[in-house]
C-alpha cells in the first residue's frame, strides 16, 4: 500500500513516482491533484522526478557489436533433456537480487542460467540408488513396528477401547 504523505504532510515519493508513471488510482489522483494545487514543494519534487525519468528514457540504445545468432555448431549443442529444465541456483532466480529484501524462490517456468542445482535433484541423496532408499525405508518401518510391540508389552501403550 502506498503511503500518501510524508510525516511532513507532503506527498510521498512513491505516490509522486506512481503519478509520473501514470499508474495511480482514482482516489490517489484526487489526493494528488488537491495537494498539488497549493503545494509548490511537491510540484517541484514532481517536476524533478519527471526530469529524471525523461533523462533515463533519453539514454540511447547502444548499437550491437555483432550478431548473437547461434551458429550451427552452437545449435547442435541443444540439450533436450531435463538438466536445463530443472536448474535453479541462488543467482538463477532473478528475484534473488543481492540486497533485496523480498527473495522469492521460483518454482514456475524453468530459466536456464546457472551451474548449481538446488531444486529436485539437489534434494535427493547423491550416490544412493532408489533400491537402497527402498531398503532403508523398509528397515525403518520394521524397527518402528518392533518398538511399538516392545512399548505395548511394557504396558506403556494401551489398546484403544
Amino acid at each position: 500500500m502506498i503511503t500518501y504523505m510524508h510525516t511532513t504532510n507532503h506527498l510521498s515519493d512513491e505516490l509522486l513516482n506512481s503519478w509520473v508513471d501514470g499508474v495511480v488510482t482514482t482516489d490517489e489522483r484526487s489526493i494528488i491533484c488537491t495537494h498539488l494545487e497549493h503545494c509548490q514543494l511537491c510540484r517541484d519534487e514532481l517536476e524533478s522526478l519527471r526530469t529524471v525519468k525523461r533523462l533515463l528514457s533519453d539514454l540511447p540504445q547502444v548499437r550491437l557489436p555483432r550478431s548473437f545468432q547461434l551458429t550451427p555448431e552452437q545449435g547442435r549443442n541443444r540439450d533436450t533433456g531435463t538438466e536445463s529444465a530443472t536448474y535453479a541456483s541462488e543467482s538463477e532466480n532473478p528475484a534473488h537480487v543481492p540486497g533485496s529484501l523480498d527473495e522469492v524462490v521460483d518454482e514456475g517456468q524453468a530459466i536456464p542460467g546457472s551451474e548449481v542445482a538446488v531444486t529436485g535433484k539437489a534434494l535427493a541423496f547423491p550416490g544412493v540408488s532408489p533400491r537402497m532408499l527402498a531398503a532403508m525405508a523398509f528397515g525403518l518401518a520394521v524397527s518402528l513396528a518392533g518398538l511399538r510391540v516392545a512399548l505395548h508389552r511394557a504396558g506403556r501403550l494401551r489398546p484403544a477401547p
Partner: protein
Amino acid sequence: VLIPRLQEEMDTVQIIDQNQEDERLVARAQKGDLDAFNRLVVRHESALYNVCLRLLRDPSQAEDATQDAFIRAWGAIDSFRGGQVRPWLLRIATNRAYDLLRSKSRRPAESLDSQPFEIEPEWTSQAPVAEQPETFATRSELSAHLEHALAELPEDQRLAIILSDVQGYAYEEIAEVMDVAVGTIKSRISRGRSRLRAVLQGSERDRELTENFGRLNSV
C-alpha cells in the same frame, strides 16, 4: 484526447502481433528449427545486450552474457511454457549478468581487468534528431552523471529502473523478469528514481543543469 487513445490502441495491437510472432517462432524452435530461433534472437538481441551492458558496464562481459543467454535459451526452449518470450529471455540474460557481476566482485582487487570501464562518452554522444545544441549539451552532461549514478544503485533498484525508464517496459513485464509482485516493482522504481534525483540535486552543477534542462524542455 482521441489521438493518444488511438495511438495506445495501435501500440497494443502491435504488441499482440509481436507476441503472436514470438509464439510461432518458439513453437518452431521447439521442433528443432534453429532458423526460427535465430529470428527470435534478432528480435530480442538488442534488448538483452542493452540491459546486460547497463548492468555490467563492460561491453565484453555484456557480449558474453547475451550470447550465453541465447545459448541457454536454445538449450531450454522445451521448458518454455508459453507467455511472453522477452521477459523469459531477459530473466536468463540478467541471471547470467548477475553471475558475472558476482564472479567479478570475488576477483582480487589487484587484478588487471578490475578497472572500471568508462562508457558514457560513447553512449551520450548520440543526439536525438532535431535537438537544439544547448539542450543536447545539457542532456549529454546530465546523462553522463546519470549513468554513473545508475551504476551506484542497489542491484534490485538498478535493474527495475533500467527496465522501466531506460527500456520503457511495463510494470507487469518487469515483474515477470524479476519474478516479484508488481507492487514490489513499483517500490523499487520509486526508491531508485528518488535516489537518482538526490544525486542530481547533490551538486550545484547538477542542480543548475537539471533546472536548465527542465526549462529548455518546457519551452
